[in-house]
């Protein structure tokens, strides 16, 4: 094992990468793939289980129609052909998080095949081939006890919760992606991001990588220019967009160092570690696992009829790329501005804020400014920052009505994010409304004039600019709740000076 890695530029100058991605998406159906147990996240352990998803002797699976529909819709959105006839197969291997010690999946007869997804990287469109989209069931979750960090290694025992077992999964497999050169990590990331957008637009999954409802395995290989593709490794456990990029990059560097040293790449499963950004090999010494696939005898084939598929196709929403182009036009944004909206994950949020009454410019200002800053600080996705598009629109409405100035609005927004209530409620309860009552303001102005006779004289003598100091004094006594422009007009009027 070499300790010094070559530089990335050096690697891509000498080697050509081929990547491939296998993405698992947990569908947001109400019930599991093969039984009627609910799928909602976060229940107490083993409370979302029945004889079927626990794999009790005698139980039998029945396919969830909504899961099949969702899979077909994903396939259609990815420009796949929908099979006339397909089957489930059993993938046999022993693992305690799999109740039956086989997974019901699809093998050589998947429901969707041969599609593509266009993604944009640095303003260029790259077409990623989709090999297949198929249905399967998720496994339970294992808690490792007694080890150092909750990892399996070093644990003395493990505890299994089957709530997740049997939740519908869709696996989306790309064709090998050659020819990406130095952009391989960016393309991998852009693909996963675009796939996530597509699936989210279909409303079939919440596609949250951090909660595991979208999980990625990344295949990477290197070859010398003009030579055959190299041996690939499969990196598992890649659970954020940034990790997708890092995993490809790290594996390219590692493989290059092995090849440089005259070594050979082993076809193996590797694990990605978020903390170090490295991959490490799996511990299994067994050679390629033989899953002994065979047609699932407890389920009959699925033969989606043409009318059903046509109906699903007709009901597909506008796809994200098309949708984004339309929004960009409506919002009057440059490519660069649109890119920053995209990077912030704010497209939908801004869209909804506009729908709730704000102007595109105002909506963008809040989401990309104050709220993005807070999301970064607290390390959450923008959508989870604590403010809804409706609240942001309401806040902007208060500003437009002159009830809040910019500084007060930011204070109110903090309250919203802290969960204190709606902007109007917070403004009222914390008494943050702009003081527009002229009587009270006039008193404050008169007080400021009386307290600062010299400045007042300067203003009277025509040095209107000196009014700023008195405005400041008034703002101080009204604790910022006055409108500065109104205060200034009032000062000049009390001193009988023309503005």
């Amino acid at each position: 094992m070499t300790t010094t890695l070559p530089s990335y530029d050096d690697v891509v100058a000498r080697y050509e990468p081929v990547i491939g991605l296998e993405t698992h998406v947990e569908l947001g159906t109400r019930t599991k793939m093969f039984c009627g147990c609910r799928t909602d996240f976060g229940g107490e352990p083993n409370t979302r289980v029945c004889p079927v998803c626990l794999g009790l002797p005698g139980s039998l699976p029945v396919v969830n129609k909504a899961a099949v529909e969702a899979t077909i819709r994903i396939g259609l959105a990815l420009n796949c052909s929908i099979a006339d006839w397909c089957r489930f197969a059993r993938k046999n291997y022993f693992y305690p998080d799999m109740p039956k010690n086989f997974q019901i999946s699809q093998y050589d007869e998947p429901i969707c095949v041969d599609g593509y997804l266009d993604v944009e990287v640095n303003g260029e469109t790259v077409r990623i081939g989709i090999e297949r989209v198929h249905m399967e069931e998720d496994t339970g979750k294992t808690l490792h006890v007694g080890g150092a960090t909750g990892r399996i290694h070093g644990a003395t025992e493990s505890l299994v919760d089957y709530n997740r077992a049997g939740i519908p999964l869709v696996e989306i497999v790309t064709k090998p992606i050659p020819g990406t050169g130095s952009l391989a990590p960016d393309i991998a990331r852009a693909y996963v991001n675009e796939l996530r957008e597509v699936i989210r637009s279909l409303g079939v999954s919440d596609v949250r990588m951090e909660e595991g409802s979208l999980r990625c395995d990344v295949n990477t290989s290197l070859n010398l220019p003009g030579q055959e593709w190299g041996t690939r490794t499969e990196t598992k456990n890649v659970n954020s967009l940034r990790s997708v990029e890092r995993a490809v990059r790290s594996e390219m560097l590692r493989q290059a160092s092995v090849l440089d040293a005259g070594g050979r790449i082993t076809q193996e499963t590797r694990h990605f570690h978020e903390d170090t950004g490295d991959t490490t090999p799996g511990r299994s010494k067994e050679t390629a696992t033989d899953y002994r696939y065979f047609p699932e005898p407890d389920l009959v084939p699925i033969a989606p009829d043409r009318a059903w598929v046509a109906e699903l196709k007709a009901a597909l929403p506008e796809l994200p790329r098309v949708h984004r182009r339309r929004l960009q036009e409506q919002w009057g944004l440059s490519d660069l501005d649109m890119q920053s909206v995209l990077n912030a994950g704010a497209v939908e949020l801004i869209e909804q804020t506009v729908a709730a009454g704000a102007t595109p410019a105002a909506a963008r200002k809040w989401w990309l400014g104050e709220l993005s800053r807070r999301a970064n600080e607290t390390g959450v996705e923008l959508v989870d920052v604590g403010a809804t598009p409706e609240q942001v629109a309401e806040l902007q409405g208060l500003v437009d009505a002159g009830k809040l100035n910019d500084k007060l609005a930011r204070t109110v927004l903090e309250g919203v994010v802290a969960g204190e209530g709606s902007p109007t409620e917070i403004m009222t309860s914390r008494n943050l409304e702009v003081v527009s009552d002229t009587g009270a303001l006039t008193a404050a102005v008169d007080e400021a004039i009386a307290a600062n006779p010299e400045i007042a004289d300067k203003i009277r003598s025509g040095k209107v600019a000196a009014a700023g100091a008195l405005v400041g004094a008034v703002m101080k006594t009204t604790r910022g709740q006055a409108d500065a422009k109104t205060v200034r007009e009032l000062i000049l009027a009390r001193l009988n000076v023309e503005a």
Partner: protein
Amino acid sequence: MAAISREEVAHLARLSRLAVTEEELDTFAGQLDVILQAVAQVGKVAAADIPPTSHSVPLTNVLREDVETPCLTPEEALSGAPDAEQQRFRVPRILNEDLAS
């Protein structure tokens, strides 16, 4: 010639998670050999262009509406467990992490 060797039987036992004894290996190797030679007769049938039958019922699209049905209580779910802890099924330490999800 034997259809299956003692080593192959030992491999099958490992794949099948059966901690068979040496004595059993001898017995099973002999018996499986007889059985395999007998069942290998299926190879005599000329069936190259015959489609396989995996189901005898000619059904397709047996689908269930996405409607909740009652779950077991955790007590019922764990009632048969040889060992449970923290409302979960307890198992000894796991060696093979490659298949972990």
